[in-house]
């Protein structure tokens, strides 16, 4: 008997893992018409794992106080062997993750996989999106560069427009009147521990929901019909389906490889894409550099605030949209999932994408 078989036998006798492996790999059947968009979950897991690993590595050399932070990052970039690689992968990786998150959300919206009985999956996923953006925002401050300092100042300043408690909110976020050591302290704690501690269980819950409810069937093809709402729990089976392992996992592997190729292409050949010049000057609270802008994924919010005559209104509109999206599965109770038969939804969907892209481009040039 091979070594592998012996090990599996050992575990199987004690934990019954053969059964678990079968149920989740070779006998786990996916709908036949499953498409490439369903790989994005695996892509995101891989990318987050890379963020986690590079993050821990950076922790070895990073110093989280205002006197040493910038110098420690410079040391990582210049002295530590391959420090430049770890840091750049971490920074570029964050951006690729946001891209993948948006694509994942867009495909779920288009195929209406958020609808009953998968509302909880959607809520968990949306919260994961918000937490990821939170990790992007807090991580941005840590290098303590001009870009870090002033982008954080602008981002936290917008909360001052909240009526009554606005200024108190800004002070709370910053740990003081201005961005400084208290801000760095709390952002570091949130970025390294606070957000990840919530993020981890949320991801596990999200995966549990996906597995427990069963993978949704793509709403395409001649014979697709919307299903009746179920009065009791039933795991969605696909008896005519294809095994997850090895059939679909091969597709997962291919898309993961292509996303990693994109990540490393940017890391090696266009690292400046996400590093404007202000990212390499140490923070100076007395000098605001020209043209400080948030990262591309926040440009829509930035431009919205500039467009509305009152910042409070701009904030309120954004808050409203985010809340609407969070509770979408409870607002959209129609059972129909085929895009061709959801004209209102698809119109709003396309408009939403155009608005996002348009506002972002406008924000970039304004």
């Amino acid at each position, binding site marked *: 008997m091979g070594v592998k078989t012996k090990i599996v036998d050992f575990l199987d006798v004690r934990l019954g893992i053969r059964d678990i492996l079968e149920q989740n790999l070779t006998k786990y059947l996916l709908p*036949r018409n499953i498409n490439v968009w369903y790989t994005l979950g695996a892509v995101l897991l891989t990318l987050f794992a890379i963020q986690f690993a590079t993050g821990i590595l950076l922790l070895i050399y990073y110093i989280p106080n205002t006197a040493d932070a910038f110098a420690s990052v*410079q040391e990582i*970039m*210049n002295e530590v062997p391959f420090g*430049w690689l770890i840091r*750049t992968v971490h920074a570029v990786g964050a951006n690729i993750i946001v891209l993948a998150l948006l694509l994942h959300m867009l495909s779920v919206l288009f195929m209406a996989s958020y609808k009953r009985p998968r509302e909880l999956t959607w809520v968990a996923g949306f919260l994961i999106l918000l937490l990821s953006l939170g990790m992007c925002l807090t991580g941005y401050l840590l290098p303590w560069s001009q870009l870090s300092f002033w982008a954080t*100042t*602008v981002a936290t*300043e917008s909360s*001052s*427009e909240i*009526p009554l408690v606005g200024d108190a909110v800004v002070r709370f976020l910053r740990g003081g009147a201005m961005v400084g050591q208290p801000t760095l302290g709390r952002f570091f704690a949130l970025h390294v521990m606070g957000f990840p501690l919530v993020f981890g269980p949320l991801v596990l819950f999200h995966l549990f929901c996906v597995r427990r409810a069963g993978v949704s069937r793509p709403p395409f093809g001649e014979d697709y019909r919307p299903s009746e709402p179920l009065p009791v729990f039933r795991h969605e089976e696909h008896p005519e389906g*294809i095994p997850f392992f*090895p*059939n679909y996992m*091969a*597709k997962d*592997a*291919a*898309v*993961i*490889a*292509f996303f*990693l*190729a994109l990540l*490393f*292409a940017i*890391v*090696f*050949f266009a*690292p*400046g894409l996400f*590093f404007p*010049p202000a990212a*390499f000057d140490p923070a100076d609270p*007395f*000098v*605001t550099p020209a043209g400080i802008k948030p990262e591309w994924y926040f440009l829509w919010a930035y431009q919205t*605030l*500039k467009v509305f*005559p*009152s*910042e*409070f*209104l701009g904030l*309120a509109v954004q808050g409203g949209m985010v809340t609407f999206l969070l509770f979408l599965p409870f607002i959209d109770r129609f059972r129909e999932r085929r895009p061709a038969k959801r004209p209102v939804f698809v119109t709003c969907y396309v408009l939403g994408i155009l608005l996002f892209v348009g506002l972002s481009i406008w924000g970039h040039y304004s």
Partner: protein
Amino acid sequence: MINSLLLFRTVLSTVVMAAVLFSPPSALAQETENSCLQCHESQPGRLGEPVTLWRTSIHADNGIACHSCHGGDPALMSMEAMDPDRGFLGVPVETDIPDFCGRCHVGVREDYLKSAHGRALGKGGPQCVTCHGNHRVMKASPALINPQDCSRCHEYGRAGEIKGAVEETDRLIGVLEGDLAALHRAGIATREMEGELFSLRNSFHRLFHSVEVERVRAETARVRDDLEKIRHKVEQIQQTLFVRKVGGGIVVGLLVVAGLLAAFIRRTYHEEEA
């Protein structure tokens, strides 16, 4: 039902109205203009001109404002800002100009005073402002040495020789500055080298003021050697960056091939599924 809808709409309108009443977006104004600029900017004629001239100068780019040279107190809005008791120096007479600028530009002042130009100060010779201007002072370059300006007082000959000796070196300094800026943009720690280059450029530029051809030529050779050392370091870094790109190309290539192989494997399964 209707009551709660009405309540909701009332609350919403109140909130929106309150929102509209709130002031427009907060500005992140960082400028606290000093009183010299605030008063003189709006003045006509020769009292206001210096401000416009100064704004495009290299001094303005580096945060050197009126009081840095003229003294006085830029925090006071009254005429007291120009009180001699507050260090105000006013407009220097011609013979005081080298000392005026030399408070900061120490090396240049030293070389100038020892030079033929310095010895001619007050007797028709040039001082700082003659070539550099006073408010619209730009970054020094060999272009300041030219036939039109130098032949105001004497033949251009030797000035031309000095210019010839320094132009190429100045050009090299400019190129290195550009290369270092590009490396800085790529995340390389260039502060030390930039400092070395700045120091070299300064010692190079101060020696023009001695207007001695032989001395300039000798010093130029020394500066070239030091420049070469910095140039060598820069080239090593550029080589390292290139090697990284090659490695990166290999990694990306391997990933793309891996992706294609996985996709082909998927296809073999797909054929069996059909």
